[in-house]
């Protein structure tokens, strides 16, 4: 099975993606992670205004069979959360890089994204 790894994102070893858009960084988990977890049934996210730290957990994702922490790709302030996931957590499986996004972060510094995995590096990791 081959998984979508969009070129406009950066990645964490723990399978989160980060995409820069209009000064904020949007965060979700990859299709590979969604497939590994199976049916996602619950996502616990921070509130707008909360601060998150790079490589530290910002939330929890639960599938029927497993529970897993979510890690922040960059440090900063949460400016938006995807409330659609409250009633439709399955969006994480169905559209991981689109409607299944989780939070947006206003980064505290400019260059934290540069240290993350490139799409090619992440593809190597999940092959």
């Amino acid at each position, binding site marked *: 099975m081959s998984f979508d790894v969009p070129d406009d994102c950066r990645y964490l070893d723990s399978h989160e993606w980060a995409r820069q858009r209009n000064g904020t960084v949007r965060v979700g988990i990859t299709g590979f992670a969604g497939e590994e977890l*199976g*049916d996602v*049934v*619950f996502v*616990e996210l921070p509130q707008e205004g909360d601060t998150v730290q790079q490589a530290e957990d910002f939330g*929890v994702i*639960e599938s*029927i*069979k497993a*529970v897993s922490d979510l890690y922040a790709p960059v440090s900063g302030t949460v400016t938006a959360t995807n409330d659609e996931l*409250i009633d439709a957590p399955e969006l994480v*499986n169905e559209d991981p890089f689109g409607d299944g996004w989780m939070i947006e972060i206003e980064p505290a510094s400019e260059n934290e994204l540069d240290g993350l995995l490139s799409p090619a590096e992440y593809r190597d990791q999940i092959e």
Partner: protein
Amino acid sequence: MSLRQPPIDHAAKQTDFGGWEMPVEFDSIRTEHSAVRESVGKFDISHMGEITVSGPDATRLTQRLTTNDVAALDPGEAQYAAITDESGTMLDDTVVYRLPAGDDEDFLFVPNAGHDERMTERWRAHRDQWGLEATVTNRTGEYAMVAVQGPDAPELLGDRTTVDLGELDRFELAAGTVAGVDAFVARTGYTGEAGFEVLCAWSDAATVWAALPCQPCGLGARDTLRLEMGFLLSGQDFDPETNPRNPYEARIGFAVKLDTEFVGRDTLEGVDVEGPAEKLVGIVLRERGVPRHGYPVETPDSETIGEVTSGTMSPTLGEPIALAYLPAAYAGSDRSVRVRIRGEPKNARITTPPFLP
């Protein structure tokens, strides 16, 4: 230690279960689960043990090691039972099949994955201790088991077996062929749906499996299906080491026949008279979250009164459900409790399994 392999090469995610490398998920748990509730699915359950008992004292030996009434079984009938020790603690649960007339063996019972060697030893040790004449054979490596479960299971299997499924009541079995190979077909299962379990030779399992065109299901869906029915999982909802329970606590008193003689009977008679101090209850969360094994259950005043033994998000109900042993007063009540999930107390209510109406 290497994991024991099932007889069929499955293209599925695998998991270690009771020393076996078994498929956990073929497509998605939700897809597999709803196939069984709405139409039909198949499961490779070759990790379950098969032990045969035959000879002049086969009935007496099995009667004295299981809680149900083995002597009441006619050929072609089966019953659910617990296997208890002297203190009434459940070592395992099992289905005892009295094989159809004409078979060389008298009984076949099915212990849970990884328990086959221990139970074979238990039967032999007691046979010798009691001076009984019986042959006990562990056939776990010879028999494979494929479950076909769901409302469309009778039609699907009926077209592929010589056994007249219409004549087969629940907890009955018959010998015949499935997909042309010799098999026992039993009307038993672990899903709460209509369905069958096919026992065949290990080398024929792939033939039986391939002949059943329906959704393949893994252990993930097997777990959500059984949990919605409140069926026990050995080693998790009870375990002689980590969670010692007797059948009354575990709500399977219906499988205990005190008018028979078996190991643990006298202790259990006392439990039956006095009532168990704790009972297995169903819990439905009123908030979002998934209750899981080991999570504490508390009163609204934050007093811990038990812990979750099994829990999941019910695919059928869309609600988080769990089993837990709580003080007996909670059983049958609609009292409010809380399940502590990652430090946060979540409101929940007590219910009586099964969770499905």
